[in-house]
């Protein structure tokens, strides 16, 4: 899929995991062109679309940036009209509408994660064609194929924040170790009712596994 993306692509590993009281969203930081040239080692794939809602991007960088720009505006407008913070589902639906209605021309997928007062921490996947799915945790991007086994085996519902951080970091490290178009640093954002915490783990501080 990556080699067919024109321009800069975020061949990537992205994930979002709910834990007891919040949600952790994470990504790598590599952007590539044509699967062989790393055009950026420090691209930001975690876009804040509202105070407690983030989304991570995969696919064509240009398409993803344009969609999140339009989505940010629409979510902000919706929030002002409703005079209350938007629901995570609303944010995910905005992305879904944009992806589905323009599915012929766009090549971008998203994971939306956040916290709202109605349902607490949530994770939504918006796939390439515009499918919207709610899950307790999800992984995406080209690097995700290498960690399905790890994620399925190691995920437990209702983890603590530290356990969840360890799970997300390990998953990203494993994927970045095997996928050539994922790499750079690991970005992690912890979203809870209290606020948003952004962590960056440089490549050499990531957990090491066998043969590394």
């Amino acid at each position, binding site marked *: 899929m990556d080699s067919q993306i*024109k*321009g*800069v692509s975020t061949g990537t590993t992205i994930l979002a995991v709910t834990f007891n009281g919040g949600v952790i969203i994470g990504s790598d930081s590599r*952007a590539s062109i044509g699967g062989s040239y790393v055009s*950026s080692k*420090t*691209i930001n794939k975690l876009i804040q679309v509202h105070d407690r809602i983030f989304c991570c991007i995969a696919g*064509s*960088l*240009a*398409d993803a*940036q*344009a969609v999140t*720009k*339009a989505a940010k*505006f*629409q979510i902000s407008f919706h929030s002002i009209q409703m005079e209350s913070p938007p629901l995570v589902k609303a944010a995910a639906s905005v992305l879904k509408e*944009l992806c589905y209605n*323009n599915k*012929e*021309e766009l090549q971008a997928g998203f994971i939306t994660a956040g916290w709202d007062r109605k349902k607490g921490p949530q994770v939504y996947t918006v796939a390439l064609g515009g499918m919207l799915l709610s899950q307790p945790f999800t992984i995406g991007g080209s690097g995700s194929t290498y960690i399905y086994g790890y994620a399925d085996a190691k995920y437990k519902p209702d983890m603590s924040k530290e356990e969840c951080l360890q799970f997300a970091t390990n998953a990203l490290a494993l994927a970045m170790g095997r996928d050539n178009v994922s790499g750079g640093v690991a970005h992690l954002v912890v979203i809870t009712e209290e606020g948003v915490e952004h962590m960056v783990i440089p490549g050499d501080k990531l957990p090491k596994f066998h043969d590394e």
Partner: protein
Amino acid sequence: MALSNVLEIPTSGFNFENVARNVALEGLLEGGHTKTPKPMKTGTTIAGLVCKEGVVLGADTRATSGEVVADKMCAKIHYISPNIYCCGAGTAADTEKTTDLLSSNLTIFSMDSGRNPRVVMAVNILQDMLFRYRGQIGASLILGGVDCNGNHLYTVGPYGSIDNVPYLAMGSGDLAALGILEDRFKPNMEMEEAKELVRDAIHSGIMSDLGSGNNIDICVITKQGVDYIRPYQESEYKDKRQKRYKYGPGTTSILTEKIIPLELEVVQETVQRMDTA
């Protein structure tokens, strides 16, 4: 309201009209084995970096048309606003027109709003426009400037992707220039060191890339103002052209001379009076 797009009112959502048109065009051209033009990296090395006092941009000055050097002193660093300049790689016409359009829009915006434009605003306008044209505008741009929020350097790709970076190189000579930048870049460099580093990066592009060459232009943007040094360094390989091809009398020697008088008979003579008052 002071709008950033003076010529067209922005509509919400996406406008993919050009995609249908492009598909139809490609269908028409397919029969003649012609494809729609792809964004070309037409021989350029451009680079930029953020230093302590501002932003330094650099470019070579060669413009190529296929295998021929079309312009030996072309200006690749374009003016956007008094505090923002933009280097362009890719199709020369596209970079020229795009930066021109951006500059016009920002000038009118400055007058309407009474504020100096910010670099992020310029970047957003470029991104919106290039994304709308789906990569058909072959412009890879390095946007650098100083505004109330600090010193900024952005890359804008032909498909509309952007990235905020501390140092950058683009064009066909980008890999050579990037090597130099990766080796010697440090955050918060002094101005002279920064200028030398950008010069070295462009020089490396000129030496290692066939499409880049001739002179090196440098543009330094600081809070105090802009220093556009053109050329910062002239090419070592200059030829001496005569440029005057007038031949004095006696250049071609006369070997023989033959004169034949023509004998003419007057057959008819008419006189017409003309009034020349």
